[in-house]
């Protein structure tokens, strides 16, 4: 999760920079690189803990998104 958040945050910072520097090809390249990295970490995380968004293809018969950890809860709350 830390790796995913790190890559997402880096991509977001590049995105904010690009909002005011749209012709900066280096920044664009860097943003794409962080986005790809984030996509990899996301896949790793979701395989272990469950889907982060409704779109992610997990579960054939059950809506798995509900069971993935709620971000404000700890493990003991999740078991209730």
């Amino acid at each position: 999760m830390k790796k995913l958040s790190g890559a997402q945050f880096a991509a977001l910072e590049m995105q904010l920079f690009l909002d005011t520097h749209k012709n900066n090809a280096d920044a664009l390249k860097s943003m794409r690189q962080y986005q790809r990295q984030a996509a990899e970490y996301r896949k790793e995380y979701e395989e272990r803990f469950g889907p982060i968004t409704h779109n992610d293809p997990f579960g054939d018969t059950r809506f798995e998104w509900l069971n993935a950890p709620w971000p404000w809860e700890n493990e003991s709350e999740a078991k209730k």
Partner: protein
Amino acid sequence: MWQYEKKLQYPVKIKTPNPRLAQIICTQYGGPDGELGASLRYLSQRFAMPYPELKGLLTDIGTEELGHLEMIGAIVYQLTRNLTIDEIKKSGFDAYFVDHTTGVYPSSASGVPFTAAYLQSKGDVLTDLHEDLAADATTTKEQPAFPRARKPLI
């Protein structure tokens, strides 16, 4: 439109509850310079922005502020987990508790409910950008104010 990601922008894992601190941090949720005001400010002002750079920036920052709002909510929630009546009374959290129990409610530290009067959207690029600068400056005041407010309390 927006799509939800079931994760925080940065993980929040608080082991020891602290209701007194929760009441202070709550102002960053729905207080005069909180994340709710920030996101509404940027997401409302962007409609009147004449340049793509500014429409993009206000959209992205306003969106990020919503992520901050969720983190602050998680902090307040975790700081008020499993409280005893004694802890609530001793910490001074009773004033919040009588109105909201441990529900996360957008209000300032002194208990004023969130109001849209905390922000402005004037339909003029320079006026709105000046307001954004002023709003941003408040965070430089909050950061030193937080430890100051905490010191005599803990």
